[in-house]
């Protein structure tokens, strides 16, 4: 039982990360029906953005006030790259079938990984570490100190931070989607792009906003992952991206709340599977991907129902 509770906490922590990333998949998919395969890399860029901010401005600092700046740095990097890829690579392909954007997304994913790997330590004028190996992530006193003991359950401070981020982001997202003009525009476009266009909504702008919103959340996830794992590397986005996509599908792709729910469910199922299924932790990705396939085959609309179901 103790272990069950502990794994539940672990699962919710990882699940929060998945959820934060999954929102990006789901928002973009809801609007342009594109699986932005490179979204995992946007998450990775966020982590590196935070690291860079730290190395440039706050080297050696460990106090809490640094954290918001790290998050801002992460967001700037992620959003910048995401919007750039949308502009340069995806927009010209809009309406060109499905194969071309997906292959483009794979290309971008590989390109971003390699770009960071090869050139992170070559930024002129800055002494960044080589990204060819894992890089330690800055430790912030309040969020990475000793774990909190709650009876038998140990909760890492960074886990509290992660889950807290998810809750705050969820609230902000709700407000953004339902209470702002842009958010309502996004809803309209995702329901019926043609009508939305007729009603004078700037679809291009909405799409950029969707990419940006997804990237911002992924950036927060990048910071959270850095704090949780205390290190980051150039390929951290690939598996995380796949998992987050699984989460998005699990919750019902196109549905923001579904993505958040799906992330949490996936995280918990994954950790519990390690605990209770034979084979141990090396199989956990297998269970996650098997779940993805099963969901796609038997309930493609996911837990909360997807906007567009007819992939079948």
């Amino acid at each position, binding site marked *: 039982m103790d*272990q069950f509770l*502990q794994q539940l906490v672990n699962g919710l922590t990882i699940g929060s990360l998945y959820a934060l990333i999954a929102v990006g998949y789901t928002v973009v998919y809801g609007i342009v029906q594109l699986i932005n395969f490179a979204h995992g890399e946007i998450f990775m860029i966020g982590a590196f953005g935070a690291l860079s901010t730290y190395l440039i401005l706050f080297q050696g600092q460990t106090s809490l006030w640094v954290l918001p700046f790290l998050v801002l740095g992460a967001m700037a990097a992620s959003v910048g790259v995401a919007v750039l890829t949308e502009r340069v690579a995806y927009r010209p392909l809009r309406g060109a079938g499905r194969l071309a954007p997906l292959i483009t997304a794979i290309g971008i994913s590989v390109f971003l990984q390699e770009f960071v790997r090869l050139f992170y330590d070559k930024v002129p004028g800055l002494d960044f570490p080589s990204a*060819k190996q894992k890089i*330690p992530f800055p430790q912030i006193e309040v969020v990475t100190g000793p774990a909190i003991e709650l009876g038998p359950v140990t909760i890492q401070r960074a886990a509290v931070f992660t889950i807290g981020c998810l809750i705050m982001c969820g609230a902000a997202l709700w407000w953004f989607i339902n209470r702002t003009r842009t958010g309502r525009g996004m809803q309209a476009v995702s329901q019926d792009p043609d009508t939305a266009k007729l009603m004078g909504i700037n679809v291009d702008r909405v799409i950029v906003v969707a990419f940006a919103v997804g990237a911002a959340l992924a950036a927060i996830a990048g910071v959270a992952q850095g704090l*949780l*794992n*205390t290190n980051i590397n150039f390929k951290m986005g690939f598996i995380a991206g796949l998992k987050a996509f699984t989460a998005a599908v699990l919750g019902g792709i196109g549905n923001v709340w579904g993505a958040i729910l799906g992330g949490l469910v996936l995280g918990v199922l994954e950790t519990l599977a390690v605990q209770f299924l034979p084979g*141990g932790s090396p199989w956990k990705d297998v269970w996650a991907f098997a779940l993805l396939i099963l969901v796609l085959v038997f309930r493609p609309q996911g837990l909360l129902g997807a906007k567009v179901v007819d992939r079948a």
Partner: protein
Amino acid sequence: MHKRSVISAGALLLATSMTLTACGTRGGDSGGGSEGGGDSGDKVAKIGVIAPLSGDLSALGKGIENSVDLAIKQANEEGGIEGWTLEIAPEDDQANPDVGKNAASKLAGDKDVVGVVGTLNSSVAGTVAPVLDTAKIVQVSPANTGVSLTKGEDAENPSRPYANYFRTCTTDAVQGPFAARYLYEEAGIKKVATIHDKKAYGQGLVESFTEEFEKLGGEIVAAETINPDDDKYDAVVTSVKAKKPDAVYYGGEYPQAGPLSQQMKAQGLKVPLMGGDGIFSPEFIKLAGKTSNGDLATSIGAPTEKLESAQAFVDAYEGGGYSDDYEAYGAQSYDAANAIIEALKVSLKDAETAEDARQATIDAMADVTFDGATGKVAFDEFGDTTTRVLTAYEVKDGEWTDVNTEEFK
């Protein structure tokens, strides 16, 4: 109609292509001629290096490459081998068996290559050694600890699988038990959990550790594995923590061991993590963070900085202007390269071309003996090093500090 045209086409094709390729060869020949000329009349013999020069383990790999480079430079400066210039031919294996095999094929195809220093990983050696063995190129590893590379798959009846394979480091069969004795006898720890990364090196270490630890009377309370591609080991740490071990023995390398140590401590499992030479790197401490104090590692040979024979190497390395540290395997690599150079002194003497000397170099290796940076260098009938000195290190104040050095018996 069709048949006739096809036959005539075939004949024509043959004739044309032969003519064309003949043209190609002429151009190629003149190309080769100009390239071969060095600045002196010396013939070239190359010593290859196969190590992870990129990727997670590149810190270790760079240390190996630079140390070999140092040995070769010194040999050339000292006049080394009459009529020959030695060169280094580094190849990246990315710690991946497949890439390593291609690197080995490349070196085997280079007629100037007479010996290879490498690899870092035992799993990579598994694919590199057969290729080099076929090409009769001697291979000396500074870091492979997998027992089967020298003694074969069957531990009961050891038989040497690759006649070309030697190593300057001790094997899992020595390192694991050494760690077990240190934990049980010196540190007084009786309950240990083991975790490994499923690779040849990690699994081998954990197996030999477990055997010795249980023989001594200790208890293995949990045996887990991780996937080295993961970043997050929460689930494993939780299962291990529930078994309340007094230490965790990890078989694997620092890119995983560092975060594992950190996450263990963060999850409240505040016991030392111990590993083999694969975690004996400053990178481990960087990744594991401040909570890594008390973590342990074993490494082969006496501490380089303290050994007198090693001091010369350290000084030379620091004077060599290398941008990377020599890391855990610097001294062993330096010795490995020097062992090959010693053998070449015998084999190259009468050789027309470097390729001719390959087999002779392997033969000469068996008799090589000299005082190297890690102590006396010599090989037994399996190609293993005859020295079995090991050192235990502990992280104190963010640095590896040696706590125990002894000869393993």
